[in-house]
């Protein structure tokens, strides 16, 4: 009897676990579902019944989208976010791959010092640096309100972590013999790096790209301090300002929140495998 029960339990177990995971997934997605449900309703309907699937009194509406897009200047802020994220990510990868590679291959004192400083700097919270950053670069040099300033600061903050990861990758995955062969064939060090080493680093490049691009795209505090002009806002900054201005017009807010989430969610649907893999391998190395 007991054995029969056991066999039965074993058979049911996969179904139970599957059901449990469905429930958890629902709970995790729940806040997003609430936004999606409400984005197609009028303000009055949202206020009256935020849980109903379709607006009770005025039904289905698409009006929130064009309205919110116009008010938050969507394509402009989207473009800003895109320019900043892409250029900061590319520069981080180029600079830190070069730097990490060089540190591995040269045991000079300056290299070990730099590497030590970079590792130590990873525990520094941004709060310690924000006042001096704003006062030096903003106050003394007047560099606020330029996208380039933000891009370079993003790179400066992420370069230590990325260098650390490239350092590990070169150390374990790039055989010195390959470079020596290239050198004998007449490559300079610069050519060897770009033609031989850099392409071999592509798994780490993907990891760094995913982690940093997500961080740059979602960052709020640094852009809000550096870019204070309306036409330079990034998506998180414009969401904050939009919310402050229109927090009573809840239909508009719903549309703005969904618009802020949509680009990265769409990207995730296509790149989901790589993103999960990238974050996992980045986490283990970091």
């Amino acid at each position, binding site marked *: 009897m007991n054995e029969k029960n056991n066999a039965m339990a074993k058979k049911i*177990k996969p179904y139970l*676990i*599957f059901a*449990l*995971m469905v429930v*958890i997934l629902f709970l*995790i*997605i*729940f*806040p*997003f579902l*609430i*936004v999606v449900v*409400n984005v197609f309703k009028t303000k009055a309907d949202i206020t009256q*019944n935020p849980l109903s699937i379709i607006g009770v009194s005025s039904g289905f509406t698409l009006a929130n989208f064009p309205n919110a897009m116009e008010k938050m200047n969507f394509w402009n802020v989207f473009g800003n976010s895109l320019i900043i994220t892409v250029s900061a990510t590319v520069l981080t990868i*180029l*600079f830190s791959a*070069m*730097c990490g590679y*060089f*540190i591995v291959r*040269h045991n*000079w004192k300056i*290299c070990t010092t*730099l590497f030590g*400083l*970079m590792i130590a700097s990873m*525990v*520094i*919270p941004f*709060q*310690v*640096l*924000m*006042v*001096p*950053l*704003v*006062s030096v670069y903003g106050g003394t040099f007047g560099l606020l309100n330029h996208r380039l300033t933000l891009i*370079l*600061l993003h*790179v*400066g*903050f992420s*370069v*230590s972590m990325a*260098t650390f990861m490239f350092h590990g990758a070169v150390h374990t995955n790039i055989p010195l013999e390959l470079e020596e062969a290239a050198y004998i064939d007449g490559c300079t060090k610069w050519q060897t790096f770009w033609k031989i080493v850099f392409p071999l680093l592509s798994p780490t490049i993907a990891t760094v790209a995913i982690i940093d691009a*997500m961080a740059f795209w979602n960052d*709020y505090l640094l852009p809000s301090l550096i870019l204070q002009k309306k036409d330079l806002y990034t998506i*998180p900054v414009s969401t904050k300002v939009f*919310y402050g201005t229109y927090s009573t017009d809840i239909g508009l807010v719903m549309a703005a*929140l969904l618009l802020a*989430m949509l680009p*990265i969610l769409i990207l*995730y649907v296509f790149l989901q*495998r790589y993103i999960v893999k990238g*974050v996992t*391998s980045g*986490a283990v190395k*970091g």
Partner: protein
Amino acid sequence: MDRNKMSYRVSQFLIFAGPATLLFVGTVIVPLIYGFYLTFTSWDGVSKNKPIVGLDNYVAAFADKIYWQSMGRTIFYSVFSVIFINILAFALAYLVTMEVTVRQKDKNGKKTVMNRGIWGQNFFRAGFFVPNLIGGIVLGYVWQFVFKRALVSLGNAITQGNVPSLLATSGGAMFCLILVSVWQYAGYMMLIYVAGFMSVPEDLKEAALIDGCTPAQAMKNVTIPLMRSSFVQCLFLSITRCFVIYDVNLSLTDGDPFGSSVLAAMHVYNQAFTYKNYGLGQAEALILFVVCAIIGITQVYIGKKGEVAA
């Protein structure tokens, strides 16, 4: 070319490591040192001269009751968030790497027993990670709507009365902050634990089971000790992230009600940028950094000490 010449070395260093070094020094090292200098001044953020006041800012920081209240809150928030993030993340990782024994008929109609994952494990792994894609500001507003409107309306429908929002009481606001952080980070830490689970060699677990361990014992005595580095990693990441959280705090509660949910990072921001006490704000930020670094590094040190190699 003489490869040992100083000029050759300098030029090579500048070419390869120069850009990264320059930006790293410019954004981290210089501001860190300059910020340390600022703590000895009573700068107002506008005027050219920054009067030196010695240790006054540190004295004021240690006497700033509101600051230490926010610090206490931050520690409370971090302790609960870190514990629940890691418990949930570990459980989720266990679920999405779990294997079950199923009986299947092969082509010839023969019954075979095989181990395989639960259906859709990769799909769930990807799904549980979704909150990490969205920035803290947006998440905070989404949850604010959930707490203020959706849950209130649900509560009203159930009780037929007027249910207040969780965000309206100080205890409730802290609870919401912890809940949102756990919800946000559990999926991220889950991925690290998944990598940890996968790194434990299958044959070790099997050997333990053959030697008479129950699955629970095998988990406790074999799998978890071998995953120690994952725990160190996740704890370090969640502690350092929770300690300096700002954007969710800003968009979810904005410190309300009555400043009862202002965490240390927000207090530092307000001190410097809202009240224009740059020197004091900077001193308080530095204290926050020291507290955070001590906790993080101690944790890593203790964790690494007992690490077992597979």
